[in-house]
C-alpha cells in the first residue's frame, strides 16, 4: 500500500482532441500518481471514454501532451506496442477473442508480445483466475461464459501483462445487473492491492468506494477534481450537483 506516493505515472497536460473539427476534449490537465485510483464521472457523451482511449493511443490527439513515466507519448516515434504492455485496458464490450479458450486468451499477450516463459505465465494466469473465482473455466470458450465471467477474464488478461496502470472503460455498462457486483469486486480488490487505475463508470456508490480522486467531466472539459467524500456530499460546481441529482430518486 503506497497510496499517496509522489511518483507521477501518467501526466496529461492541456490535452485537446477533436473529431472532424468538432472538439471532444479541451484543455484537460490531470496527473495520476502511482497507486492512485482515479474515477472519471460525467454525463454520457461528455468525453470521459475518449480521454481513456487517448491514454492508450487508440485515439490521436490534436494538442497538449501526455507523459507516461515522464516520457511524452505525443511523438511519432512512440512505440505503442511497447507502451500498451504497461497500460492495460478493459473495454465495455465483451472483448475476449472468441476463437480461443480462456487460457489462450490470457497467454497471447505475455507469450507472443512479451516473449515470456510459457509455464511461468500459466502459473501466474492460474493464480489470477483463482483470485477472480474462475480457475475451473480455463479451458472454456468465451461463448460458454456469462457476461460477468467474460469481463473478469478480460481483467485477468490485462493483468497478466503486469501493467503499471489499468484503464477500465465502463466495464459493467453492458452487464445484467446481477453480474455487475462480481466484476466491481474484482476491481475493488485490485485497488486494495495498490494497482494504479483510471476508471470510467456510472456506478456511483462503487465510484465513491473505490476512488481516491473523482474527476468530473462535462462537455469535453474537466469541471472539478475532488476527493470522493467531498464530491458526493458537497460538489463544488452546479453542473456536478445537477449531474448527481439525476442519480437520486
Amino acid at each position, binding site marked *: 500500500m503506497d497510496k499517496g506516493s509522489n511518483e507521477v505515472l501518467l501526466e496529461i497536460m492541456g490535452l485537446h482532441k477533436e473529431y472532424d473539427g468538432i472538439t471532444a476534449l479541451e484543455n484537460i490537465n490531470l496527473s495520476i500518481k502511482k497507486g492512485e485510483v482515479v474515477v472519471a464521472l460525467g454525463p454520457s457523451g461528455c468525453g470521459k471514454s475518449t480521454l481513456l482511449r487517448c491514454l492508450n493511443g487508440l485515439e490521436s490527439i490534436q494538442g497538449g501532451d501526455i507523459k507516461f513515466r515522464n516520457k511524452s507519448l505525443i511523438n511519432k516515434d512512440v512505440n505503442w506496442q511497447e507502451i500498451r504492455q504497461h497500460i492495460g485496458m478493459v473495454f465495455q*464490450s465483451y472483448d475476449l477473442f472468441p476463437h480461443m479458450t480462456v487460457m489462450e486468451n490470457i497467454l497471447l499477450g505475455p507469450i507472443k508480445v512479451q516473449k515470456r516463459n510459457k509455464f511461468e505465465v500459466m502459473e501466474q494466469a492460474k493464480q489470477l483466475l483463482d483470485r477472480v473465482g474462475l480457475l475451473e473455466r480455463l479451458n472454456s470458450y468465451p461463448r460458454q461464459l456469462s457476461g460477468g465471467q467474460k469481463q473478469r477474464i478480460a481483467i485477468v488478461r490485462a493483468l497478466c501483462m503486469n501493467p503499471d496502470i489499468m484503464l477500465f472503460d465502463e466495464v459493467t455498462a453492458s452487464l445484467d445487473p446481477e453480474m455487475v457486483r462480481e466484476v466491481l469486486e474484482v476491481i475493488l480488490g485490485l485497488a486494495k492491492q495498490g494497482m494504479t487505475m483510471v476508471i470510467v463508470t456510472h456506478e456511483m456508490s462503487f465510484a465513491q468506494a473505490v476512488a481516491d480522486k473523482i474527476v468530473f467531466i462535462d462537455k469535453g472539459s474537466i469541471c472539478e477534481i475532488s476527493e470522493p467524500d467531498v464530491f458526493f456530499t458537497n460538489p463544488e460546481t452546479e453542473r456536478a450537483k445537477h449531474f448527481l441529482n439525476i442519480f437520486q430518486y
Partner: protein
Amino acid sequence: MQSLGISVLFKGMNMQRLFDGLLVTAKIAFISIVIGSFLGIVLGVIWTSKSKWIRSVCRIYLEVFRIIPILVWLFIMYFGVTTALNLHVSGEITSIIVFTLWGAAEMGDIVRGALESLPKHQIESGKAIGLSFWGLYRYILIPQAIRRMLPGAINLATRMVKTTSLVVLIGVIDVIKVGQQIIEFSRLEVPTASFWVYGFVFILYFIICYPLSMLAKRLENKWNG
C-alpha cells in the same frame, strides 16, 4: 441397344481416358484453389487498407474478373497474350494462371468481407495487449475471418471446379471433353451413350465436390461445437 449403353464406358481405353480427364480437371482446380486462396488472403488484408487508392485498385481487379467472363480470360491469355509476347504456354498452364487469378480476386473479396464484419473492438482489444499489425492479423483477425468466410470459400471452390469445364475451349482435354469425344464416337451405334457418359461424368464431379462440402461442414461443426 439399351443394354449396350453402359458398355460404352468400358470400351477400349475409355474408362482410363475419363479418369485421365478427371485428373486434368482436378489438377487445374486444386492448384488454382490452393494458390488462389493464399493470394486471396493476402489481397483481402491489403484490401482492408484505409487508403482509398489501394481499395479502388483491389476493387477494379475483382470487377475486371467479374465483368469479363472467364472464357474470355482464357482466350485472352491463351491466344492473345502468348501471341503478343511470342511465348508458348500450354493450355493447362494458362488455365491454372487464369483460375488462380480469378480465385484470388473472389477470395480476396470474401476475406475482405469477413475481416470487415469482425467487430471493431476485436482490433482494439488486440492492440490493447500490445499486438503489432501482423500479430493482430495473424492471431486475432485472420483466424476469426477464416471461420466466417468458410461457407463462401467452399462455394467458390466448387464453382471453380465446375468452371474448369471451360478449359476445353483452349484445347485442354478435361473430363467433359473426353466424355464428348466418347459420345460422338459412339453416336451412331449407341444413341444412349450421352446418358451414360454424362451420368458418369456427373458422378466424377460429385466425387471431387462432395469432400469439399463435407470438409466445410466438419470444420463448421468443430468451430461452433
